[in-house]
């Protein structure tokens, strides 16, 4: 299995995007990479989406004000610093509206029910806004490195698809049709559209009621004046992800579903020619005494049960057997992934006895991420146990 040179990654990248299925430790991985980069001397900002409460508190993320705040307790001896922010998707969207429209018009848009729906619940707005925010943070030039934790989407791929989907949607045929009567000026070509529009309006009126339709036209008209080429904007954020200096880190755990998502993602990144730094495999089980096999431990536990000696030892042996089996299973999962994706470097992080919720915990995860790499032998297998 190839390994990831994590220190090189955090020292040289300008954007690191952590992606993967929900519940695999993306936020912790992002924060650990960001902290390590900062303590190695870089000016870093980490953009998180939905951190665990105690982790958020430990990073000083107590208020949702949508701007990066300095994290205290970071070792700045090497000249680096760490800022962190939690994404507020609606607020980010509102800020775009406020910066593009005149105050009165902006207020109209912000109060429109269709806008509220789009900005707070459209599947993809969060992903789009994460990218928008990333673009804004990069543009300030305040940071050497921005680490992004992607939203907990229903599928990891949403993150890549959503910005374009939103762009396509707002730039789409339907929106243009709804705008057509205003622009067509009675020209023949538009007649087809107008007939189509009547069908659409009739159905929408039936289903939604006339009031909703008026809100909708207002919303569509505002979008037109305000956003112009929404898709262009989406394309821009997309290009940012392909720039040199950007690195994707796919995060997974050694379980079937998470690795399936990871595999989709790896293939998709390759198809899009986006730079993949590697796979971080969290929660990998390991045994401290790999030479005592599970079978032997279980047989010994049974012998102790029968002789009635030391229930404590029997319990500890059963625990050991379980850990050895878990370690074997995890290794097999990792090897299967590596076999199917031989070019993807993998770094493994051991299952932690407790949840990570302070800077020390993050520091440890960062050190473990970096320790898997041996500069002399980049292709060495990790076959301990």
């Amino acid at each position, binding site marked *: 299995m190839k390994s990831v040179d994590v220190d090189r990654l955090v020292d040289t990248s300008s954007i690191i995007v952590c992606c993967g299925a*929900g519940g695999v430790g993306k936020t912790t991985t992002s924060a650990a990479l960001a902290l390590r980069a900062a303590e190695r001397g870089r000016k870093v900002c980490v953009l998180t989406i939905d951190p665990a409460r105690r982790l958020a508190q430990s990073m000083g993320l107590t208020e949702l004000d949508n701007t990066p705040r300095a994290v205290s307790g970071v070792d700045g001896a090497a000249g680096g610093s760490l800022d962190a922010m939690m994404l507020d998707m609606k607020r980010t969207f509102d800020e775009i509206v406020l910066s593009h429209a005149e105050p009165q018009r902006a207020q109209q848009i912000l109060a429109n029910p269709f806008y509220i729906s789009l900005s707070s619940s459209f599947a993809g707005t969060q992903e789009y806004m994460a990218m928008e925010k990333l673009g804004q943070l990069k543009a300030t030039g305040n940071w050497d490195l921005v680490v992004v934790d992607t939203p907990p989407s229903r599928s990891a791929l949403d993150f890549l698809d959503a910005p374009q989907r939103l762009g396509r949607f707002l730039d789409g045929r339907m929106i243009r049709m709804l705008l057509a009567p205003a622009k067509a000026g009675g020209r023949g070509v538009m007649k087809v559209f107008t007939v189509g529009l009547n069908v659409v309006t009739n159905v929408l009126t039936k*289903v939604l009621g006339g009031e909703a339709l008026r809100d909708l036209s207002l919303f569509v008209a505002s979008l037109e004046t305000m956003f112009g080429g929404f898709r262009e904007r989406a394309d821009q954020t997309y290009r940012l992800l392909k720039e040199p200096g950007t690195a994707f880190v796919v995060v997974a755990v050694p379980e079937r579903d998470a690795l399936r998502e990871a595999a989709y993602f790896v293939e998709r990144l390759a198809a899009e020619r986006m730079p993949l730094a590697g796979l971080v495999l969290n929660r990998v089980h390991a045994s401290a005494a790999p030479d005592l096999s599970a079978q032997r431990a279980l047989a010994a536990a049974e012998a102790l049960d029968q002789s009635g*000696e030391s229930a404590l030892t029997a319990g*500890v042996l059963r625990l050991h057997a379980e850990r050895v089996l878990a370690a074997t299973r995890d290794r097999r999962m990792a090897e299967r992934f590596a076999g199917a994706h031989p070019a993807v470097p993998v770094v493994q992080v051991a299952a932690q006895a407790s949840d990570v919720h302070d800077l020390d915990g993050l520091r440890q995860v960062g050190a473990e991420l970096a320790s898997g790499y041996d500069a002399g032998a980049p292709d060495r297998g990790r076959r301990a146990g």
Partner: protein
Amino acid sequence: MAVSDFPSVKLHVVTGKGGTGKTTVAGALALALAAGGRQVLLTEVEGRQGIAQLFDTPPLPYEERLVATADRGGEVYALAVDPEQALLEYLEMFYNLRRAGSALKRIGAIDFATTIAPGLRDVLLTGKVMEAATRERRGGGRLYDAVVLDAPPTGRIARFLNVNAEVAGLARMGPVRQQADSVMNLLRSRRTAVHLVTLLEEMPVQETIDGVKELTRVDLPVGGIVVNMVREAFLPPELFKPVAAGSIDTAELGRGLKSAGIDATAELVGALAAEAGDHAGRLLLEERERDELAELERPTYELPLLAEAIDTSCLYEMANRLTQQGLV
């Protein structure tokens, strides 16, 4: 067999944080409900095809398909609800607009409406599930004894189910509003229960507590808490604290190993003690999380962590455990 804690419930909504095994629990619950010859519909609404993966079947179409037979003759059907298809069906049912519907689909209007009209998507999804749960006579489709919904995750569940509030800004009256009202009537009744799946870990427990608060606030019926993937304890509870703190009786461990015929080197004893320490630490943490959940005062069910990947036979085992503990 225990008596069911939810005898009046027809619609079981299952939610949980990502990674807690919500779909697996929904599948096991459907099997448990079907046992003994009942007909159960298992639905999903997020386009993930999680049910097909769980039961190892090809991707589900917008159609009720038999995916499993239960203990003693019941049947589990599955349906992946798709908002576009649901809107077309809705247009056909209420307005006889089938042809207009397909024309609308071609120009992207269906996608448009289901995407942007506030709450419309959720009304359509929950509406379809409600339709299946309230069917009364033959001709309107298969009749089910129970419907299980593999719902969106805990963080979004209250908003997803509280469709009335979501469409309020859109439709103060009219057919969508009526549909939303009847969905809410079912959801708020004793015929519905929202079960939350969690693990004994900090974040999932916190989300479960927040989810229960949120559901209660909007007047939706909280059902049971299903604690999934519970580890086996290899130590007696009184040893959790000392062992976690590193004071395990290594002399006894050494003697025990020797008498079982294992060469008890200091290295091996140390390694096993370290493993036991980790384990005890985890168990202590789980105890704390369990206490937090107990404060919710909801019926709680536990499912063990399975060593192997989930396959269909595990689902039957999980179904049995849910039944024994009284969820069904």
